[in-house]
């Protein structure tokens, strides 16, 4: 692949970086730190905070040049909540102090981040959350219960949304905090799921003390800050997804390798599922092209709904194809690895049931499409100006 040309300012910074730190000899963490210090972490961030105040469109060419110089490709999964959620939130809403303290170790993944939003009583209706933050002389005292928290067991910091005023409408009574996960009163427990494993945690907060300097945005402005967090900025480093990616690839491979498992009925189903997966692949490409061309669209929501539907359908067929293994499972143990690609067909089937729930349920997404794309009449709902404490709660 041809290493692309970069603007002069960027070329200069890149030369300085490579002169100071040899990617072939430095550790991944050392090289990441050096990138930050030379403004070559996230280009669109301000100077001094890992960026050069440049357009994001140079990010991918930069990554390509770094790889061409011998660096390991930067792994987005080293600190997914940190990179995808905390960083943009701090950039747009954080104080200078918060940015200085947190962005560098976030980037290098020395400090891992988690997100503390959902609660047992507040999932789709996140704005109804009830974790309470009460003001006292030194800051805030927080009590509540968060669920479906990924990375909490590894995290140093959390993005916390809590209710600071129950007497005003729900959207106006929340504030946003950076939580030190080592504070007394923070209890992280694995949240065991239907697959037997725990990819997530629940976090119990009992009289947890948070200094006011850790608040992000004004008191009562938590929802506005949270919307930045939830914008789900995913860089398009992913590029073109190949044909037969993911579960459909596994199903196709199994079909080809095991003629003895084939039946006429399953043959029809496999081809049908292949077509659906292929159409979704093309549709996602179109969505990415529209996005790159600056054209608006809700194809992202469509993509998520179809991803879940396709996965559920494909994993169901795979389980049927694997008839001999239909009644057994590999491991229900809490400690088994959910990311192991060799997990059994029954594991993938069960895990896929969550695809239509996590990150926005299919039903909520359909409702958003109905509202924002089709402009259909809204469903009857409770007056949004009702004070939170007067709303019916479970």
């Amino acid at each position, binding site marked *: 692949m041809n290493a692309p040309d970069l603007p002069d300012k960027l070329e200069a910074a890149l030369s300085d970086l490579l002169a100071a730190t040899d990617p072939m000899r430095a550790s991944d963490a050392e090289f990441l730190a050096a990138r930050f210090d030379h403004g070559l972490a996230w280009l669109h961030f301000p100077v001094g905070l890992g960026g050069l105040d440049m357009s994001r469109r140079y990010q991918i060419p930069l990554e390509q040049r770094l790889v061409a110089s011998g660096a390991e490709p930067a792994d987005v999964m080293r600190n997914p909540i940190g990179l995808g959620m905390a960083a943009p939130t701090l950039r747009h809403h954080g104080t200078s102090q918060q940015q200085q303290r947190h962005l560098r170790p976030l980037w290098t993944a020395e400090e891992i981040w988690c997100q503390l939003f959902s609660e047992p009583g507040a999932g789709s209706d996140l704005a109804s959350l009830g974790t309470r933050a009460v003001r006292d002389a030194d800051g805030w005292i927080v009590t509540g219960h968060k669920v479906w928290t990924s990375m909490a067991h590894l995290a140093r910091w959390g993005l916390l949304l809590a209710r600071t005023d129950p007497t005003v409408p729900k959207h106006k009574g929340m504030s946003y905090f950076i939580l030190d996960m080592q504070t007394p009163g923070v209890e992280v427990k694995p949240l065991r799921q239907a697959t037997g494993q725990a990819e997530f945690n629940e976090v119990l907060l009992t009289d947890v003390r948070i200094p006011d300097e850790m608040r992000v945005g004004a008191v009562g402005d938590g929802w506005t800050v949270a919307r930045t967090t939830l914008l789900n900025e995913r860089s398009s480093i992913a590029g*073109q997804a*190949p*044909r*037969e990616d993911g579960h459909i*690839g596994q199903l*196709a491979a199994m*079909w*080809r390798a095991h003629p003895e498992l*084939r039946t*006429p009925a399953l*043959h*029809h189903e*496999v*081809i*049908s599922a*292949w*077509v*659906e997966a*292929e*159409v*979704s692949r*093309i*549709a996602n*490409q*179109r*969505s990415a*092209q*529209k996005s790159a*061309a600056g*054209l608006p669209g809700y*194809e992202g929501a*469509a993509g998520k*709904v*179809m991803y879940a539907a396709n996965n559920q359908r494909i994993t169901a067929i795979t389980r049927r194809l694997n008839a001999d293994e239909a009644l057994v499972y590999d491991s229900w143990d809490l400690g088994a690895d959910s990311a192991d690609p060799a997990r059994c067909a029954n594991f993938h089937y069960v895990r896929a049931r969550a695809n239509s729930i996590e990150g926005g349920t299919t*039903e909520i*997404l*359909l*409702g958003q*499409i*109905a509202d924002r*794309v*089709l*402009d*259909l*009449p*809204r*469903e*009857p709902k409770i007056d949004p100006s009702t004070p939170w404490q007067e709303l019916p709660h479970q």
Partner: protein
Amino acid sequence: MSRPLMPSLLHDDVQDRLREELRKALDKHCDSPALHGLIDAQQSHDAALWRLIACEMGLAGLLIPDEFGGGGATLREAAVVMEELGRACAPVPFLSSAVLASTALTVAAGSSNTSAPEVIGDLLNGQIAAVLVPATTCPFAEYVPTVVEHGDGTVSGTVTNVIGADCADVLIVPAVAAERIELYLVDPAAAAVSITRRVSLDLTRPVSEVTLTRTAVKPLTTDGVGRAALQKALEAASVMLAAEAVGVADWALDEAVAYMKVRHQFGRPIGSYQALRHRAAQMWITNSQACAAAIYGAACVATDHDDRQIAAAVAKTYCGSNAVAVAEHSLQLHGGIGFTWESSLHLRLKRALAISSMFGSADQLTEALGPMIDIVE
């Protein structure tokens, strides 16, 4: 599995302008009263509308290369036309004449001693051509013509389910000639030609049965070029029908959404009921997917891309099934009124059904796709 390169899946300015112009014309000249008028009069096509589209707008020659005086456009532009014609359920022989016949003629023009350029000239003047092949033919399975050339300049045979034959000025006949497939020209007005329009499911694009009895023909292809010409025409028809299906499905969704906003029951618009909102949102999702699949199919067939057969088969099967499903849902969402003859919903449903059965049904394509993608029984 190979990694097929991804072309642009966006429409360009030329295509947007073409769409706008055509939609304006169709909104004016192809509304519901016009469609019902045609059906009541038992006409098979709207001659005035065809003249407007084919001649005034020059779309008869859209796919004809400019070296023959045509528009020199690609299947990507033709796809936009097909979408709009699908939306309007337009009763014009664009598919049969401007896609199928034109594609066959363009390939035939490469044959020696052919009269293809002359016929192309006629088409550019608004004459209508039809290819005598059953619309139920799958482009990806071996097709053997049911018409035979006797070795003496005459042909005999019967071809069923032919679109566009009853309004054609010239017929293009694929026939078995010794070991080869060749194309021949027949005058539909000749005595030895019998064209019987069937009572058709889709009254806006009826099918006919055509019988030739020792009919005199002029050769259009020699040296076996007929097979290639026919194959290319069938593939073009298939992928263009995917685009037409997208237009039908978009119309069906638009109509349903518009109705749901104004129809009130139990004191509120039916569009405020969650089950119906969600159903409409699902329709939008599958329509946006179909749109992408159809563009990819057209792009691949247009450029003779390595992936073209898979791309066309995937587009046709997905878009065809989707149009039927969305038309069905739209009828349901309209309640009783959706089931009346006066409504034009049933016309779109029948058009969608016909599309799904033409030039690659879902069942035929499931069979054909298996070997293409190495998922065999």
